[in-house]
């Protein structure tokens, strides 16, 4: 239920819901009557974020990078250009940067100052990404954050945290799971989770995907 989330520090409470419902309606009414906004445009924006812009875009980019070395080279050189060459349902703006996980380095993306996030390829950020626990701890205790997500990494792997303090945006390219040799790009894309592209998760293993199906 939309008004039934009490487990997170950053969620609205029931009283906020009714208060905000009324205040937001009033503001939209005023802005519409003054001619500042067009309600049809607002509908269109909400619909785009609910239906078109999401992590499937990012998963397609990662799956292509796993299967096409030339695409991966372009992605690492200019992720915006490479992403737009795929003809995604929603185009990607400037300053997208791909960072690659390797056996030596695991990448983690945060915005300690607000909520900067590559929404064109991942959709709107989840509540936890915008929450105080994540923003405060990702830079001082990234291993603790990864443990919160149940991510276990080899002990000798280096952690690299990217704080998105400007208009550059970061997309993590997770490692391709073993046992996926010969898989199609479409099948591989189903292993690429949103969290694996933020760095708070890993790509799913083939057996995990089978379990879901």
């Amino acid at each position: 239920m939309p008004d039934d989330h009490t487990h997170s520090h950053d969620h609205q409470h029931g009283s906020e819901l009714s208060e905000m419902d009324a205040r937001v309606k009033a503001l939209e009414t005023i802005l519409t009557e003054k001619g500042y906004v067009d309600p049809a445009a607002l509908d269109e924006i909400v619909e785009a974020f609910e239906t078109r812009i999401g992590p499937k875009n990012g998963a397609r980019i990662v799956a292509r990078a796993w299967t096409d070395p030339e695409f991966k080279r372009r992605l690492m050189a200019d992720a915006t250009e490479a992403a737009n060459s795929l003809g995604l349902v929603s185009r990607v703006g400037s300053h997208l940067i791909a960072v690659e996980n390797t056996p030596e380095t695991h990448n983690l993306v945060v915005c300690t100052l607000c909520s900067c996030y590559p929404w064109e390829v991942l959709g709107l950020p989840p509540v936890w990404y915008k929450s105080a626990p994540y923003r405060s701890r990702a830079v001082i205790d990234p291993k603790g954050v990864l443990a919160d997500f149940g991510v276990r990494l080899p002990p000798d792997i280096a952690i690299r945290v990217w704080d998105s303090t400007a208009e550059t945006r970061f997309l993590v390219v997770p490692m391709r799971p073993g046992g996926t040799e010969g898989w199609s790009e479409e099948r591989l894309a189903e292993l690429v989770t949103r969290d694996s592209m933020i760095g708070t998760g890993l790509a799913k293993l083939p057996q995990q995907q089978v379990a879901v199906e």
Partner: protein
Amino acid sequence: MTNSLHDMGGMHGFGRVEAEPDEPPFHARWEGRVLAMQRAMGFTGLWTIDAGRASLEALPPLDYLGSSYYRRWFLGLENRLLGRGLIGADEIAAGHSLRDGAPLPRKLTAAEVGKILLRGEFARPTNQPARFKKGDRVRTRNINPATHTRLPRYARARTGIVEAIRGCHVFPDAAALGIGDNPQWLYTVAFTAPELWGAAADHDVTVSIEAFEPYLDPA
């Protein structure tokens, strides 16, 4: 404001990160309307994205911490509209417009929504060469402006390495004040965890920020 609660990197006490399985884009209808109003009003050109961020940072600390994300956005938007005289407190109380609106530079129509679904371009031309190059050792400045900045407190007066030059970009510290783009070179600067957090920190952790040239000195 710079040293406000929004600058959270390195703080303790907020607890575990709790993820919600199958989280929807919005948890209530009003959240989507706030996002849409924010984007539509951003399109008008009345303020910059950095002025928008600054209005959230200027919220009273308990409002900032006590509000959900979209409530913060709402409060910031309402404050900006009130502060610029685009709406009145009497209109908010009435829930309706009581006067004609001010003329806007432009207004977002439904047909133009595609334009705001593409992130803006923040790179700007310059005839100044970049002061630093990849591999340079740099020290961040110890600055504490009372206005907007994107140099987080945890990374001030620290020594790091320039890992990449990202181009010349709009300088948020200026754009937030509405005094123009004042473009500056932007760098990825990486710090070891012990440099940021002291000798007891993990030696296999590196943290980078995106740092504008005025934040940096040679080290």
